[in-house]
């Protein structure tokens, strides 16, 4: 089998994804639709939290995707920095706005959940706080991409920012934990059964997580394709002007 890196070739990437993208998009729509409808219409209320548990079906997947998007940007930035595959840099650029929207969704749903549960929309809980910081990282990263005109320069600088930023994001997480012990739920998706939520909530939640994941992949593919086209468009226009 040829090396995995062949998919970093723009042409090959466009060919592969033109087949892959529709499949992923349809799968994403189906899974997400199933998960959300199941979660919203066909799950019982929690004895303690009442109907608000229904928020979990969007809150948790969005929160997970927000983190995963950053991780993906970190990996693709490293790939660009080391091997200089353009598709990699453009994929990082494509993923950032998705990650930002996911962060926003997690924040919004969390805030709306917080009002009935904790009596306030916002509290400086460590997990909430680190999401706010993540949002700032996303904003800075996107703003840097937008501010620089030359595409390779922008790719280089944003990848450096992403790498340094990741280290500091991790540091912030520890700092914030040190600073305040919070109200927020611990991880309940862990394997030890005592902590786990009941199956009635658990299965639709898993489906929703899969749906958000697929949606994320579909969006990244679509946006990366657009970025590649935009890059080519820019090059062609420049050359036309020179001729």
């Amino acid at each position: 089998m040829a090396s995995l890196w062949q998919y970093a070739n723009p042409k090959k990437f466009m060919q592969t994804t033109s087949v892959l993208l529709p499949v992923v998009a349809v799968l994403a729509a189906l899974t997400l639709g199933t998960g959300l409808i199941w979660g919203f219409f066909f799950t019982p209320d929690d004895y303690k939290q009442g109907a608000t548990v229904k928020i979990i079906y969007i809150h948790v997947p969005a929160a997970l995707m927000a983190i995963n998007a950053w991780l993906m940007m970190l990996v693709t930035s490293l790939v660009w920095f080391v091997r200089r595959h353009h598709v990699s840099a453009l994929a990082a650029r494509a993923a950032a706005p998705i990650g930002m929207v996911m962060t926003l969704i997690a924040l919004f749903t969390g805030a709306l959940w917080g009002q009935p549960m904790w009596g306030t929309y916002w509290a400086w809980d460590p997990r909430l706080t680190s999401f706010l910081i993540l949002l700032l990282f996303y904003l800075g990263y996107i703003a840097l991409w937008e501010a620089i005109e030359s595409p390779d320069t922008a790719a280089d600088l944003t990848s450096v920012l992403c790498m340094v930023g990741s280290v500091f994001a991790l540091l912030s997480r520890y700092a914030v934990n040190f600073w305040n012990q919070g109200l927020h739920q611990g991880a309940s998706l862990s394997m030890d059964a005592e902590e786990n939520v009941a199956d009635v909530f658990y299965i639709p939640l898993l489906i929703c997580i899969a749906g958000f994941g697929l949606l994320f992949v579909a969006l990244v593919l679509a946006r990366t394709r657009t970025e590649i086209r935009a890059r080519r468009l820019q090059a062609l226009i420049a050359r036309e002007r020179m001729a």
Partner: protein
Amino acid sequence: MTVTDLACARGGMPVLEGVCFAVRPGTALLLRGPNGIGKTTLLRTLAGLQPALAGAVSAPPESIAYAAHADGLKAVLSVAENLRFWARIFGTSGIEGALAAFDLGDLADRQAQNLSAGQKRRLGLARLLVTGRPIWVLDEPTVSLDAASVALFGAAVRAHLAAGGMALIATHIDLGFTAEVLDVSRFRAAPQRLDDFDEAFA
């Protein structure tokens, strides 16, 4: 210094390609060419400020003293302080020679912000003398200079060449000394075909 088959780009677009020339010690080469052809781009590539797309330069950037459109002067430092700073950065000593060569003795204690356009330029050129580097790469050095100052500049270049140095000068006007001339317009990069998708990512 020999340059072989050099290609350089500005803003992601190749502007010059296949640039070949040689400068022997003790000689100068004048680059000419219409506005926007890529002289500045070429000189920046030689100075090591941007990577070449292709080709080779025999001289390392460490042997090159580069003087650009901007002079790198600090407005609040005096003429002597500006020069002394660059001398220390380049590890040379003694700025008197440079001051004398460009007739800056009287202005030595004047702050750079209180110089006229031509006086600033003279100071920028005097910096070359304190770098102690053998290859001068100059981008339109005589902008704003009057005839007397152009003559000073010519004398400085001749002295540098006589000491075995080299000079590569992009200019539109007459510098008052004879040197080989290279018109860079013949290295103009051909518009690429871009048939393959990859090429947009060169």
